């Protein structure tokens, strides 16, 4: 019996002694929902803003104060350091809790910092076990801190709002959905250049508040930010990548050039077809689109075949213009292969690729790109003709 007791004692002592290293109670961790990284005033230092969730304030707020801007569900903590993890550890000196990155959904990087290259920033997100590769990566036009400390009218945790904005951006297809994994995949690829979401604070004209808005995409060359795409250019990029899901295309009415007709995108797809002849690379982008007549302002009946054909052509032209504009910027101006042309060539011409690979950066801007758009109109919606006022 005595030996039994000793055995039990050893087990209990053992478990008590070995345990508790990695243990962290919920009230000892600061759950981060978003982080923003900027250049610090001090030379060579980073300034990181952490959006920390305050659970106790959120609990009561859900039934009663939902939507009230006064209830703050988060606390923004700013800290500086030479690397992100350095800044995170420094933040512990201001916070009573250890920062906890696993629930982090949003990583915002300031424009200025992004232009200097973000590989050193991303490394932490890739190496540390806590952050997830499914977090969204955004580049702020301006300061990342402004984004992190911005409030949202509807949601108590602004990070959640940003996430939902990104997710629902497929309604317009005028923004990109890029998470860390996606970014790293393109960054690591020998030819492709990565893109990231773009976010900025814009002035609300009604009540003079600033609010967050997704405004297109940001384009990198290697790991350095080279520029931003506006919303239509972003859709042009999405046309090429085949990532357009839904959205509205505005065309001028064939009967009245001052009036707009809104056409809804139902489905779209694209194909990138490379062709090498006489050492000359030619790329054909084939875009197929189908849509509905969604809204028309002038009370002119457009529902006849001739008008439909006319509308289809105008729509195709709009799409072509959008694609053209993004090609202009990314290919000609920045020389960033964000379209995956290199991969397409690699797939089709693996042998030629071996020589092309090393000089791809030089070849890429000179590639001749042809755009073929096949746009269709299928449906008129619920009414065949507009309501006519008498």
């Amino acid at each position: 019996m005595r030996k039994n007791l000793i055995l039990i004692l050893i087990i209990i002592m053992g478990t008590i002694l070995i345990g508790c290293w990695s243990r962290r109670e919920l009230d000892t961790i600061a759950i981060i929902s978003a982080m923003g990284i900027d250049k610090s005033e001090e030379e060579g230092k980073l300034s990181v803003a952490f959006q920390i969730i305050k659970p106790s304030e959120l609990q009561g707020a859900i039934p009663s104060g939902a939507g009230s801007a006064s209830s703050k569900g988060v606390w923004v903590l700013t800290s500086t350091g030479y690397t992100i993890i350095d800044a995170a550890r420094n933040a512990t000196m201001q916070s009573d809790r250890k920062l906890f990155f696993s629930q982090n959904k949003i990583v915002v990087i300031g424009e200025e910092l992004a232009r200097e290259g973000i590989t050193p920033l991303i490394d932490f997100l890739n190496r540390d076990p806590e952050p997830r590769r499914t977090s969204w990566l955004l580049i702020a036009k301006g300061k990342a801190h402004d984004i992190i400390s911005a409030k949202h009218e509807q949601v108590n945790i602004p990070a959640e709002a940003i996430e939902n904005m990104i997710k629902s951006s497929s309604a317009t297809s005028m923004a990109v959905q890029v998470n860390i994994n996606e970014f790293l995949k393109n960054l690591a690829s020998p030819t492709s250049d990565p893109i990231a979401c773009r976010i900025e604070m814009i002035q609300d004209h009604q009540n003079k508040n600033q609010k967050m808005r997704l405004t297109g995409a940001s384009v990198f060359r290697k790991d350095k930010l080279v520029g931003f795409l506006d919303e239509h250019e972003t859709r042009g990029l999405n046309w090429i990548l085949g990532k357009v899901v839904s959205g509205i295309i505005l065309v001028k009415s064939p009967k009245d050039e001052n009036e707009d007709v809104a056409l809804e995108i139902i489905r779209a797809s694209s194909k990138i077809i490379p062709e090498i002849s006489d050492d000359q690379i030619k790329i054909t982008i084939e875009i197929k689109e189908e849509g509905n007549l969604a809204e028309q302002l002038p009370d002119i009946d457009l529902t006849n075949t001739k008008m439909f054909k006319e509308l289809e052509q105008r729509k195709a032209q709009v799409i072509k213009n959008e694609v053209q504009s993004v090609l202009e910027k990314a290919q000609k101006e920045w020389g960033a292969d964000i379209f995956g042309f290199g991969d397409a060539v690699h797939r089709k011409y693996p042998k030629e690729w071996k020589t092309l690979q090393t000089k791809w950066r030089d070849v890429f801007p000179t590639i001749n790109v042809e755009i073929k758009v096949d746009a269709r109109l299928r449906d008129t919606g619920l009414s065949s003709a507009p309501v006519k006022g008498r």
Partner: protein
Amino acid sequence: MLEKGKISNNQFILIFVISRLMLTMAYLPYVNAPPWNQDLWISAILAFPIHILLVLPVYFLTNRFPGQSLIQSVETILGSWGKIIGALYVWFFLHRTAVILRELGEFLKAIPYPETPIIVFITATALFAAYSIYKGLETICRVAEIVAPLVLASVFLVFIMIAKDVDIYALTPVLEDGIIPVIYGGFVIAARSTLSLFLWMLKPFINEPEKIRTTVVLISLILTLHLTPTSITTIGVFGLEQAKILNFPFFHLVRMINIGSFLERIDALFIGFWVLGMCIDIAIHNYLAVLSAAQLLKLKDYRPIVVAMGTVIVSLSILQAESVVELNEFLSYKVLTWYNLFFTFALPLLLLIVAVIGKKRIDYK
């Protein structure tokens, strides 16, 4: 007889599959090996016949010496010289157990328990291994019978759940660098397997040894069916370059799962199943080490040496490498392939030749 238990052929399949699967699930060492490109999945398929080929010498040996395990038949062939070869094999099993233990510890230390010392995991798992060895081979195999279906089911569930994120174009172009590196890759994959030694040690305890050919084919098939989708999904989701960098590709794959934004963050669950599988993996390897040592020393019962062997294994697993980098160096295809091949293929082939020349065999009674 040291071990009175009998195991069925199905149990043998499951115990071996699980002992192969678990490390692949965590480390997936093949991405950083030939063919170094997106043709890994073809290598995984090619590994299927190569795998069977590598088992052949041992298959003929076990047919020549039915009812005898590795240690015993080596002694029958070489006499007292066989003791040395036997001791080599004991070392092989011992070392292998230590390596797997260390890999378990490194994984747990890297992801969910960064602050906990590695010895905690190693000791706890080694204790479990010792306990199950006391209970015998039958018990280990029965636990495998419960755990293996769970693990296999969860792995294939992962494949289904991640399928929508796979970019199938990442696998093209096919056969970019020709077929040779792909075959080499298949060979490297197959050479990591220790099936021949498992077969040699455990065949005396298998219920229906006459059906062993089907068993071997089934094992190779299951492993291929696991590795092929694994390599397709890993490369398809992360791209080749990223997959090469990641320490634990498959684990990251599980982390990427997000279905309808409610079925996500299931990685800890994955770790749970993985630990369960690793426990069995370590238990069976440890068992083989203990059994072979007992057979070498001609003990009547292997139980007295379990604790001693366990202690050796725990210390070996900690002392064998200073850091994870050193461990990975040993585990890379450049070292482990040839180290393994020596024990699983070359040595048995040599012994087979000696046995044939010396006309040594045991006849069926």
